[in-house]
């Protein structure tokens, strides 16, 4: 039986010598035997248990790899979330909050009320026209139903100030101005003016009375010395003046038409899309002339001092432009402007294609379809 020797701490087998030494007597042998037996029988105290030492942790590359895998997992999720939600452009919801859209119960929009084909209020109070359809399109994307959109008539000079009038001629601030408002550098610098992307390209043209038998107009110089009515605070007053015409500005195109009918002026000149509507409404009464000007009038939407609203409006225009399934612009053009082509003959009305819209900088999460 093995025992631990307390002095050395090592295992040792008790050895029992069978043969006595060479000089040993029988007595010696007996005494030795007894001593050995006693030594063997002696109960050795149990050794102190050795403390179970934790072996020191070993360097293990696989463990580091596993830790790195965990780190990669955390970093991937964390960085993805940071990229999606922290940095980057604002989301549609954030833009709506910034623009204040969510707090509006209705959407007041300033439009012209006397331009058949672009924006016209019937006797029964119904609004029709290309601008009206564009307004409905934007209102729809902003989350307003049709009966929550309020149209107010606006005059040209008030378009930058965004002050329209209601039926009782009370002044009403509007959130959007969609009133054949051409985008120009001077207007962009005016306070309170912030244009969306253009939604229609048109050009300047001239309207005369058929009964006047006015000689054919093919350039503004043909109107030299004549009285030409145009809308005040519009882009169309400058060119006739340069050509030597006497420009009589009016606040509304309908006043120009009245002047023309009463022979107080010889011609009316402004954007072709506006005049084409009058020509289409009264085909026998007016002649509509192309001026051959290469200046493109790009109509834009004034959002006032609301950059977030500008992005939201641009987003709607971009969707309509880029998404082939979104045909709202095309339908509006077809219904309001293309239908005037027969009456206007060869005189161009507007570009029959939506102006290109740059993709607005709006956050699109991978599972969202913001731009469709």
């Amino acid at each position, binding site marked *: 039986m093995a025992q631990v020797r307390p002095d050395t701490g090592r295992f040792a087998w008790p050895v029992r010598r069978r043969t006595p030494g060479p000089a040993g007597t029988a007595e010696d042998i007996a005494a030795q035997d007894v001593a050995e037996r006693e030594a063997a029988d002696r109960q050795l105290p149990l050794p102190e248990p050795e403390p179970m030492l934790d072996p020191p942790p*070993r360097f293990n590359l696989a*463990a*580091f790899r*596993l*830790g790195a895998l965990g780190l990669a997992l955390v970093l991937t*999720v964390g960085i993805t*979330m940071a990229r999606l*939600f922290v940095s980057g452009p604002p989301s549609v919801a954030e833009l709506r909050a910034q623009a204040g859209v969510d707090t509006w119960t209705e959407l007041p929009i300033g439009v012209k009320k006397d331009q058949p084909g672009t924006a016209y209020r019937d006797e029964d109070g119904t609004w029709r026209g290309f601008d009206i359809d564009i307004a409905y399109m934007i209102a729809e994307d902003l989350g307003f139903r049709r009966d929550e959109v309020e149209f107010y008539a606006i005059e040209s000079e008030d378009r930058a100030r965004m002050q329209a009038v209601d039926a009782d001629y009370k002044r009403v601030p509007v959130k959007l101005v969609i009133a054949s408002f051409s985008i120009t550098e001077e207007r962009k610098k005016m306070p309170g003016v912030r244009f969306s992307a253009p939604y229609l390209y048109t050009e300047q043209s001239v309207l005369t009375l058929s009964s006047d038998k006015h000689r054919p107009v093919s350039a503004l110089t043909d109107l030299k010395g004549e009285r030409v009515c145009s809308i005040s605070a519009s882009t169309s007053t400058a060119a006739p003046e340069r050509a030597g015409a006497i420009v009589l500005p009016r606040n509304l195109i309908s006043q120009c038409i009245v002047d023309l009918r009463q022979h107080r002026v010889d011609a009316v000149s402004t954007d072709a899309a506006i005049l084409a509507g009058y020509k289409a409404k009264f085909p026998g009464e007016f002649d509509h002339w192309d001026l051959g000007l290469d200046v493109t009038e790009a109509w834009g939407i004034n959002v006032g001092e609301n950059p977030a609203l500008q992005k939201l409006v641009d987003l709607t225009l971009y969707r309509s432009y880029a998404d082939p399934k979104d045909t709202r612009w095309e339908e509006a053009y077809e219904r309001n402007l293309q239908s005037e082509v027969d009456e206007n003959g060869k005189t161009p009305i507007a570009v029959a294609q939506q102006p290109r819209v740059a993709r607005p900088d709006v956050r699109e*999460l991978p*599972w969202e379809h913001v731009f469709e």
Partner: protein
Amino acid sequence: MTESLYVKGGTIPSRRRRAQLNWLLTVLPAFPLVLLVLRLWYLSRQDLPTMLLLVQYINPLGMISALFITLIWTVPAVILVLRALGGILLVSAPGDAGRSLLAVTALRMPDWVVLLAAMLAAFTWQLRLLPALGLLIVSILGITAVQRFRAERWLMVWITVGVPVLLGLLVLVFVWPGIVEAVRAGEISTALLLGVPPLLGPLLTGPVPAWSARLVTHWPAVGAALLAPLVIGVVFLRAPVLPNSAVEVGPAGGPRHVVRGQLISVDDTATTVLQDGGLVTFIPNEQVRAKTLCPGPVRARDTVVAVRGWAVDASVLSWIAPTRPVTEVDPRCLGRPLGPT
């Protein structure tokens, strides 16, 4: 009788267990086959001649596709749950774990299988299950470290505590709007599915008390294994395997009517349609005026909650893959012919 029969955990019980495992592996491939046959039986309304007709015409590849698309998400679920529960048993009661098939499977499972399963799950699981996937992943990560390595303490703490806590926090931040929405909508189960797994992560990365290990790992797994065929069967039996169609029938120029049902086959003489009640109709081909594919019956969504615009019952795969939104239903699918009646 020899003494060895009574030896606990000796050679003979182990061999017996292996024999049982062999039987299990034999039966396992038969399960999908049973499912497919059961599906046909179900489709034929327990009518043997109809079922034989279906067997004659139905393309097995089509049925396997339906099986695959419907049940793909269960594969990673089985693998990951097995690995996590078996791993907990392995680290909690290492001496006792050999008795459990669960622990043995977990021990022998290759790491790449777990990795592939996690990736497959990330793509195919609905959003409401993704927090649970996160829990399973951090749990497997921590248990693997505890089971295999004796590394420096900081490294072990990082793997078993740091990763689960951080990942849980990130997941919670992401799903928080969804939890609020679910509570507002009264969908407590959705809220719990989203919110609870991230909190449990740090608790499931190490051993449980040895006496309870078998109770909380082996037996739940056994219960799930018994329940899984039932759940899988029910899920699959509801999946369509034949296209829903509407066939306009009538003499040329004459009045028409619509036969709705599932199109089984078209041969040179007749078009075979399985109608809703399990009735098989053979329509002579000269009577067929038009056919249209009908949208599958839209099952009402059981949840309205979305997390940051991501519906909780949509998977990553579903927003990557293009969809065709069904906007209008063909009137023929409602039983009204387009032609003269």
